[in-house]
């Protein structure tokens, strides 16, 4: 319960407003997370990270910067962590998941925009997010139009670099992405005054592959019926992956998996429906859909989202004699992420069907943040494909407010009865 006020002050934060944000977390976390029954003891580490979300980790970022290190904020799983880490940079995912920031975001953005974008812009302009305040550079990317244009606004507040992400996945596009990663390396080399080496990059690839593998192991355990971990807890682990210390995080995910592995054999069958969530990302503290769903007779066993399988599936190949080989490996791995910002995006439909079978789900919830065009347009394709396979599907379009909680609950309840 350290006193972090001085630290926050040094980050030019709006302390009064920030205090209002801090005030909501303990109760929210208590009612959503701590009220769950039969949680793994190893979840205590993740409870700790959340409890210290604006404390310990911010102190670590601060210490890193005091020693001359840099901190870079990102908004998309396409921005390669391997490069940042290899150049001694701490990367933090900055997507905003709180309703708290929406009002400030709407001061400079249209109201009919995805809440994720409104929240991260609101977090910056209100100076209430210590992660934003700790960043030496923000790195955006040309994915959806809303984000692309929002970076122009962020750039008025803080140094911002934008990576040009291809919109298609032809050979040419993968080459373009490789070139774009090289440009990104130059930018980060300039920021840090360091030079990327083969050794550093290779070690960084190995480290981040280990992290992905740990998450994969966690997800594999969820294939058991019943899953030894709630969807809520698994989501939390995925969300924390975006900003926690990589080695400490990986170690704690492994510990959690060790415990869950033992737990599997002691679990008795329950009649809960197994569900997949597919769609748009869920940033901390967006636990809304999981919370509603798991309070009903259901368990979420897999998320085909960027705060789920898209984050850890596929490793970067560690083979290669030169630094260019490694960069190519990175480009190839990232271009396998199936995001609706690409056209066509057949890979995502295939992923959903494959995951539905692997995780033996009874149904799929298509989670669409309000006003997210790429995902809502893609819905039709997914709907048709799942219909062909007789996999039940429910579309939930929502934002971060609590107004529609009752209505969503009723719809999911009806869905569960039907499947």
């Amino acid at each position, binding site marked *: *319960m350290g006193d972090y006020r001085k630290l926050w002050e040094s980050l030019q934060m709006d302390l009064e407003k920030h205090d209002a944000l*801090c005030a909501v977390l303990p109760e929210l976390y*208590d009612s959503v997370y701590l009220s769950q029954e039969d949680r793994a003891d190893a979840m205590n580490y993740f409870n700790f990270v959340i*409890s210290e979300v604006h404390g*310990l980790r911010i102190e670590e970022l601060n210490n890193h910067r005091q020693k001359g290190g840099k901190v870079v904020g990102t908004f998309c799983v396409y921005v390669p962590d391997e490069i940042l880490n290899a150049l001694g940079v701490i990367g933090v995912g900055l997507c905003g998941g709180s309703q708290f920031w929406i009002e400030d975001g709407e001061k400079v953005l249209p109201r009919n925009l995805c809440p994720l974008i409104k929240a991260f812009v609101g977090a910056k302009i209100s100076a209430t997010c210590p992660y934003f305040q700790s960043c030496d550079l923000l790195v955006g990317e040309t994915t959806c139009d809303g984000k692309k244009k929002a970076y122009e606004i962020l750039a008025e507040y803080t140094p911002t670099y934008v990576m040009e992400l291809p919109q298609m996945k032809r050979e040419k596009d993968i080459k373009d992405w490789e070139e774009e990663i090289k440009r990104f390396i130059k930018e980060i080399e300039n920021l840090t005054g360091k030079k990327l080496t083969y050794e550093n990059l290779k070690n960084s690839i190995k480290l981040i592959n280990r992290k992905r593998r740990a998450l994969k192991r966690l997800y594999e355990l969820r294939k058991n019926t019943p899953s030894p971990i709630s969807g809520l807890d698994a989501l939390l682990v995925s969300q924390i992956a975006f900003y926690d210390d990589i080695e400490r995080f990986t170690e704690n995910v492994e510990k959690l998996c060790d415990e869950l592995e033992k737990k599997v054999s002691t679990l008795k069958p329950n009649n809960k429906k197994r569900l997949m969530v597919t769609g748009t990302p869920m940033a901390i503290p967006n636990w809304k859909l999981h919370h509603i769903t798991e309070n009903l007779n259901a368990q979420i066993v897999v998320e085909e989202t960027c705060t789920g399988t898209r984050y850890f599936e596929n490793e970067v190949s560690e083979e290669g004699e030169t630094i260019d080989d490694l960069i190519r490996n990175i480009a190839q791995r990232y271009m396998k992420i199936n995001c609706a910002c690409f056209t066509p995006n057949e890979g995502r439909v295939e992923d959903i069907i494959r995951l539905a079978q692997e995780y033996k789900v009874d149904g799929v919830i298509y989670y669409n943040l309000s006003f997210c065009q790429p995902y809502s347009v893609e819905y039709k394709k997914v709907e048709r494909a799942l219909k062909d396979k007789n996999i039940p599907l429910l579309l939930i379009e929502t934002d971060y407010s609590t107004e529609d909680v009752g209505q969503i609950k009723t719809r999911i309840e009806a869905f569960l009865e039907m499947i």
Partner: protein
Amino acid sequence: MKNYILFPSYNEGLKLASLLKEEGISYTIAPTPRQLSTCCGMSIIYKDEDEDRIKKIVEDNKIGVIGFYTI
């Protein structure tokens, strides 16, 4: 009703957490409730029946705590 232990810093909290683990006493790390403090950070939730044992561990190991609370 829940019981909380508050700490002057997370280092003390983590020290106690690992001792409780060694002793096989179950506990939950949680964000400090606002009714108890306006500083954010970790606290530890424990069960009534373990209070005496925990207090002894805190004393024996000179763990810095702000206090034990029930709300």
